[in-house]
């Protein structure tokens, strides 16, 4: 592999963490942002110093704002999701512009420490795959000069899956679980390798647990006791009948669990290997980024988890003199990265038909997008652009655009768009 950085960027709603890998390392390293209480975390906040074109992030942003040196925007990703704006020095900035400066400053920590700006791959790991945020993240990263092919995004669930599968086999031979306790609540992740399929399926899922509690209760003795009780009952209820190979703990709430979770840890550690991993999602993202850079996978599994689709979508086409099936999306594909764009010429057809087959179902169903509003022309002189993309794991859109037929029949850009929900007629 060429020299350069492989970056795992855990981008949460309120903070982020970075792990990275450089040639010669065996394990990903965590980036240290400061010497403060939690050195691996930086808050998603940005401040512009008054009267200067200087952007500050994290703790530095808070300090500057507190001293009246500038105004601050925190919870930046929420602002991006709302496509909001903020005003600094009387000038209006879009959330995306602020995100760009935030990512630039954040990655600058890494570039400065490693004394290189060569990025072989960057994998963002996010809790929610919100298209508005993801698109903005991709655009901002491209603006930083990183080639689009080197930028990827996965869910926390997938990061966790890659992290666990990159450990010794004995740690995932049965079920592996993760409790992530942060300001966003308590999330439970579970990974299981389903054997007997060809290839075997590594399936991971995430469950938001209603039992989750605010981290502020850990400030009092009574609160700590309550947290211990909640987590103990959670573990007892959820893991009692399961064969667990490994259990992981992560998140800001878990870094002090030895202080408040005596019973919880005692129950969890019974006949199980338990690990506290500081940057599990960022590290998992690094492993995933490495995997994306390889020509051949080192994981002999088909992957099923949040962010991956469970359908095959295809179309029968003619290429040259051959009839063949054109695969547009396959089970296990990352929905955000699944985008197809190609041109076809319909011959004696007034609509575009595709085959959709869900995992586990025997028969595919046919979906149809009529070319309504397209100009009437003789047969075979309409080139139609077909664009397929997902808006979530369960929803995809097919867009048809009339491109005409060169200068013989100029295109009109007439467009038809249809959205399908998987399991609801598609």
């Amino acid at each position, binding site marked *: 592999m060429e020299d350069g950085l492989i970056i795992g960027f855990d981008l949460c709603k309120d903070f982020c963490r970075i792990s990275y890998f450089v040639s010669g390392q065996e394990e990903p390293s965590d980036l240290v942002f400061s010497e403060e209480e939690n050195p691996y975390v930086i808050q998603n906040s940005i401040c512009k110093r008054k009267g200067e074109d200087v952007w500050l992030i994290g703790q530095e942003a808070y300090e500057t704002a507190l001293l009246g040196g500038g105004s601050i925007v925190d919870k930046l990703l929420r602002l991006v999701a709302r496509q909001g704006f903020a005003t600094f020095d009387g000038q209006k900035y879009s959330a995306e512009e602020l995100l760009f400066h935030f990512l630039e400053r954040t990655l600058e920590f890494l570039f400065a420490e490693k004394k290189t700006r060569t990025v072989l791959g960057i994998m963002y790991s996010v809790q929610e795959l919100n298209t508005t945020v993801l698109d903005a993240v991709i655009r901002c990263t491209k603006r930083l000069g990183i080639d689009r092919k080197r930028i990827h995004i996965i869910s926390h669930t997938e990061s966790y899956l890659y992290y666990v599968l990159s450990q010794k086999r004995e740690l995932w031979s049965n079920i592996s679980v993760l409790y992530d306790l942060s300001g966003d609540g308590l999330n439970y992740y579970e990974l299981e390798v389903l054997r007997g399929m060809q290839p075997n399926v590594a399936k991971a899922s995430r469950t938001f647990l209603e039992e989750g509690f605010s981290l502020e209760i850990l400030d009092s003795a009574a609160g700590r006791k309550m947290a211990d009780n909640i987590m103990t009952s959670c573990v007892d209820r959820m893991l009692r009948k399961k064969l667990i190979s490994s259990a992981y703990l992560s998140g800001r709430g878990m870094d002090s669990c030895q202080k408040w979770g005596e019973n919880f840890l005692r129950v969890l550690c019974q006949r199980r290997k338990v690990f506290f991993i500081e940057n599990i999602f960022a590290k998992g993202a690094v492993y995933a980024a490495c995997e994306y850079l390889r020509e051949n996978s080192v994981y002999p599994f088909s992957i099923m988890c949040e962010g991956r689709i469970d359908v095959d979508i295809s179309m029968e086409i003619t290429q040259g003199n*051959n009839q063949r099936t054109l695969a547009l999306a396959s089970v296990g594909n990352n929905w955000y990265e699944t985008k197809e764009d190609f041109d076809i010429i*319909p*011959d004696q057809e007034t609509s575009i038909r595709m085959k959709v087959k869900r995992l586990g179902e025997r028969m595919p169903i046919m979906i149809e997008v009529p070319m309504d509003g397209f100009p009437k022309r003789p047969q*075979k002189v309409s080139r139609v652009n077909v664009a397929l993309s997902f808006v979530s794991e369960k929803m995809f859109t097919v867009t048809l655009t009339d491109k005409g*037929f*060169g*200068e013989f029949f100029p295109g009109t850009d007439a467009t038809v768009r249809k959205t399908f929900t998987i399991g609801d007629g598609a």
Partner: protein
Amino acid sequence: MGRYILCGKEADLPYEVDELDIRIYTIEELCYYIYNYLPLIGEDFIDERLLFFIRHELELPEIADKIERFYGARSEQDATLQMLLSDVGYFSDPELSEFQNRLVYRRRKSSQERIKMKGDSLLRLKRYQSAVRCYKTLAQNGSDSRVSREFYVSVLESLASAYGHLCEFDYALDCLLGIYDLNHSERILKKAYEVCILSGTELPQSVFSKVPDQKLQKWQQDYWNRETIARRNLDTDETMQIFLQDSETQKKELAEYLDRKKEACRGMLE
């Protein structure tokens, strides 16, 4: 049953077809052009420019190599074209059979007849300047014994028509008088008379002095009648149509129309 043809790459630099003043961007458009404009395809159609376009612009090196090998070995352009159309898969089997029949029909024609077919196609496509070039090539070979008098006459008549559309009435008149010299046809003489009236040219006395006044008056009347009908149909004329559009479209279409005319004029000067 219908089908969907998966398209290949679109060229960044198109293949220019001078005869049609059109640019081709895809292999499907190239096939469409070959199939629908066969008379325009000259003997030298398969050349380095075409092969470069297919190989590098359309990124179809296998097809370019195959054409090169096939054409290099047999020098049969028709068979090579048929192979190309068949390999690309744009046309169905019945369409390919029909194309083959047209190739056979064309092959039976002499080279002069093929040039005439090309000229006629261009005339139908209103590519008058290109049509003139084709007809002039044939007209210059008028003395060739392999060319029949009837064929030569039909070439001159088409040439006169093309010149007429270009408002080159002097040349059109020369062609018509040339035909009259050969066959003394009254129909041709009447056409020559109409060209003279249309262009305001004085009637060449050497020819028209022998025509009775009564006949000339009859021809004059016929001309006026046709002119009246033509004026009545002006609203379907291309230029009139432009002026019926809204101002934005009118501006755009007028510019395009003038560009076409300028192009034709530049061609005349070449």
